[in-house]
């Protein structure tokens, strides 16, 4: 990296063309990870001298490496961590060589910090997993590898460190590699590499070591400089999540965003989702002139030929290659919050530029990151990983994470604390119809036996009422219907949810084939009682207006509906009042033209167990009486 022999302009021009590699390093506390990073940075001569001289002082005071320079001290930043001698968060390091610029996400290895590795690894192209040659493949190695594969990192390098402590023995290295291969084949990582090294002594870090002549591969730095990563991007499926609508004046409207995948050119046909409106790309204007093509991860603005309404959170795609569009999907979820998952929370889900409400329908299983074993759990805790089924309020436009990291990833935000509580990677092994909704096994049993999944108290909360029945009994012409219809109207105006059932309506349809004989009347009222029961079960107040002349019949109805839900009201009109009200009917009955008329040729039994006895003379007042009764009994309103 010296510039002496190189003209500085040439150097800068060449430097400008470098690409960027983002990598993740993972290892446990003593694997020598910080030493490796420090060595890579130091040996690529990007450490300034004053940092070095400060370092020499630091090493003497609290170094852990004896008389040697402690490279790890270069890296630790926060006070508390330095005192504990461990790194506790993700730290980003930068160095560059003649060929590439590197961003290292340095993450710690201990158990409680899966969260940090996931964070550091989310943007990484490559993961270096450190192993201590004296210890071999340990649980943490497996955990780190699993997390790398979960994040879809395509390239993994197993850095077998501390080879100096095993006399640079080839067999030790080969055994570790074989051991690791056995494990890694269960996972989905396309490119796995092995490098034996000593970070402390510098063997195989920058230059190939003479001490391991049996190793014919590249040094760590050489490997990092040459590994091909740009093809890991998805250039096939054009996805453009609209981030910002640009409307500086009347003539220009542009849609800004970062290309998630695929390539776009002026003239390309594009479809807006969810509207499915189609237009063409007119220009791709930038500060430095119009582009003739754009590709990920460029942040661009698209001007379209036609005026279509598109807002933030929507997506532009090619019409012949659509993403999945669902509200119901499955994802691998990593729980990141100190507070455990509460599945009843309505989270905010942010995917790309799209934010929507989301709920967890079901947690299928939890994965043990150490053994990859799956187990059924009710919820996830900090650093736990599971597979969950989601339903969102708005439709998401996504691809499986495996195919497209940018459209397949999301975060979950707690609606109260606003913390990022979990992150998800969408999988699409099943279509959305096949996915379970939030239906548990006990619920399934209920459905099979026809029991609703909404409880009485949920209905009660929604309607602010108890689903019960006001059963009005009384002679023909006693004013039952006047009372029932007026009551229905009053309750409706007050905000209650009610259904009114009356004799003539039911008899004209549901009970059409039945006459007024005692048997048919009993059947007719049995049907009414079952309807009232259904309504009450679903939280609705039923007002039933029926003569229901015998105590026996009324008791049977109460039984069907449920005694505690059955409120019997007697419209106690005098016979004179009734006859006066319906003179023709009573005349026919008295003349024997009409049979089965309660109060005439059949008995009307005085009702027992009535809650109210009312009088038809002043209906308005009586309605108030009923309203008062409903309020007192907390039938309506409950609150």
């Amino acid at each position, binding site marked *: 990296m010296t510039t002496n022999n190189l003209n500085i302009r040439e150097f800068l021009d060449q430097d400008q063309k470098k*690409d960027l590699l983002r990598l993740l390093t993972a290892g446990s506390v003593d694997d020598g990870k910080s030493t490796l990073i420090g060595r890579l940075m130091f040996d690529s001569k990007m450490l*300034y001298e004053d940092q070095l001289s400060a370092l020499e002082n630091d090493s003497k005071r609290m170094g852990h490496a004896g008389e040697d320079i402690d490279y790890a001290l270069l890296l630790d930043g926060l006070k508390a961590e330095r005192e504990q001698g461990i790194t506790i968060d993700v730290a*980003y390091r930068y160095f560059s060589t003649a060929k590439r610029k590197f961003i290292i996400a340095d993450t710690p290895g201990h158990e409680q910090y899966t*969260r940090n590795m996931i964070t550091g690894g*989310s943007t990484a192209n490559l993961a270096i997993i450190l192993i201590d040659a004296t210890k071999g493949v340990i649980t943490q190695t497996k955990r780190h590898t699993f997390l790398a594969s979960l994040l879809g990192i395509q390239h993994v390098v197993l850095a077998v460190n501390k080879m100096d402590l095993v006399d640079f023995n080839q067999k030790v290295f080969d055994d570790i590699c074989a051991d690791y291969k056995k494990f890694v084949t269960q996972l989905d990582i396309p490119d796995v590499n092995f490098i034996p090294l000593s970070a402390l002594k510098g063997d195989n870090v920058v230059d190939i070591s003479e001490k391991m002549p049996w190793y014919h591969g590249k040094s760590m730095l050489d490997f990092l400089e040459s590994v091909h990563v*740009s093809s890991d991007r998805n250039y096939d499926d054009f996805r453009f999540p609209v981030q910002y609508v640009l409307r500086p004046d009347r003539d220009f409207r542009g849609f800004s965003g970062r290309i998630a995948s695929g390539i776009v050119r002026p003239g390309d046909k594009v479809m807006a989702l969810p509207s499915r409106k189609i237009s063409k790309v007119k220009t791709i204007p930038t500060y*430095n002139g119009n582009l003739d093509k754009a590709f990920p991860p460029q942040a661009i603005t698209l001007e379209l030929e036609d005026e279509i309404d598109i807002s933030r959170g929507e997506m532009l795609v090619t019409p012949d290659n659509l993403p999945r569009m669902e509200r119901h999907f499955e994802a691998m979820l990593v729980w990141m919050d100190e507070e455990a998952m509460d599945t009843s929370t309505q989270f905010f889900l*942010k995917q790309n530029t799209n934010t929507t409400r989301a709920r967890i329908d079901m947690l299928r299983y939890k994965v043990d990151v150490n053994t990859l074993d799956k187990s059924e759990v009710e919820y996830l805790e900090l650093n736990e990983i599971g597979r969950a089924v989601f339903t969102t309020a708005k439709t998401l436009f996504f691809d499986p994470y495996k195919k497209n990291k940018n459209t397949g990833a999301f975060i979950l935000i707690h609606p109260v604390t606003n*913390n990022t509580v979990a992150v998800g990677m969408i999988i699409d092994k099943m279509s959305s119809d096949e996915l379970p909704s939030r239906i548990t096994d006990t619920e399934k049993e209920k459905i099979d036996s026809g029991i609703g999944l909404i409880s009485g108290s949920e209905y009660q909360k929604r309607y602010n009422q108890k689903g019960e029945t006001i059963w009005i009994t009384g002679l023909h012409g006693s004013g039952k219907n006047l009372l029932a219809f007026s009551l229905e109207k009053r309750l409706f105006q007050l905000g209650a949810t009610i259904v009114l059932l009356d004799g003539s309506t039911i008899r004209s349809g549901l009970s059409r084939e039945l006459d007024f004989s005692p048997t048919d009347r009993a059947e007719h009222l049995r049907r009414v009682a079952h309807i009232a029961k259904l309504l009450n079960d679903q939280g609705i107040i039923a007002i039933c207006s029926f003569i229901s002349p015998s105590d026996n019949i009324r008791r049977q109805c109460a039984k069907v509906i449920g005694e505690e839900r059955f409120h019997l009201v007697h419209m106690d009109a005098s016979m004179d009042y009734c006859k006066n009200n319906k003179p023709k009917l009573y005349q026919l009955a008295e003349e024997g033209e009409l049979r089965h008329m309660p109060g005439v040729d059949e008995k009307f039994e005085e009702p027992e167990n009535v809650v109210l006895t009312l009088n038809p003379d002043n209906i308005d007042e009586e309605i108030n009486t009923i309203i008062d009764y409903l309020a007192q009994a907390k039938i309506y309103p409950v609150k």
Partner: protein
Amino acid sequence: MKEYNLTNLRELEAESIHIIREVAAEFENPVMLYSIGKDSSVMVRLAEKAFYPGKVPFPLMHIDSKWKFREMVEFRDRYAKEKGWDLIVHSNMEAFKKGIGPFTHGSKVHTDVMKTQALLEGLSKYKFDAAFGGARRDEEKSRAKERIFSFRDRFHQWDPKNQRPELWNIYNARVHKGESIRVFPLSNWTELDIWQYIRLEEIPIVPLYFAKERPIVDMDGNLIMVDDERMPKELAEKAQMRKVRFRTLGCYPLTGAVESEADTIEKIVEEMMTVTVSERTTRVIDFDQDASMEQKKREGYF
């Protein structure tokens, strides 16, 4: 796939533009803090790019400690006018009237009152819910762990243990009323990237960055320029003309120069590649105590 491979600078540019747009879309009242320095100049250019052909939809704010180099203030006013920026200049006027300054009150009090407090005052006055800053992670050790969206409580305080996980390029922008976010779109840029970008994009910067003969007083190894008559006479008298440039810009009594012949960006970079001091050591405020930047950040400094 070479054809579809972005260079390091263009990838960083895309990342920053995405961040800037995300803040503009998610927050009601963002502001971009403009320090007049080279990083700020890059950041403002990125904002202009993000909303091209439209205008930047939020104001810029400069916290003027009243002790900035005169050339900085001139540059700021000329450039803002030329570009038509919506620029707010805020100072802690009360403290200024009391005569608080680095020569009389020391660097710690001055920085606290005229920079940190002035900043918090400015943010509260305009009720900004998001503030862009030009800090980079490679500047200083404790910055290496800073999030791009850095959460601040109602008192603008930063808690290193209570930062939100930040994955992919999905940023959690939800805050409660009164809370805010500091946003660092240049997080992943290095000093070399900044210079390269200034060169590539021909971004104007304050001439103080380039070497020139300037009146310099050696204060315990810090090369301090005599920028105005407020420097105590007994110090100013010792000034000698030396060819120097500034690697960072701030309050002139607190910003040390380096002796240099570099009067072009190319020469600056050449010098940088072979330098013996890293960037922030020319800032006098860093010497107060170990991990002092972390302390300042906790208190609300950028």
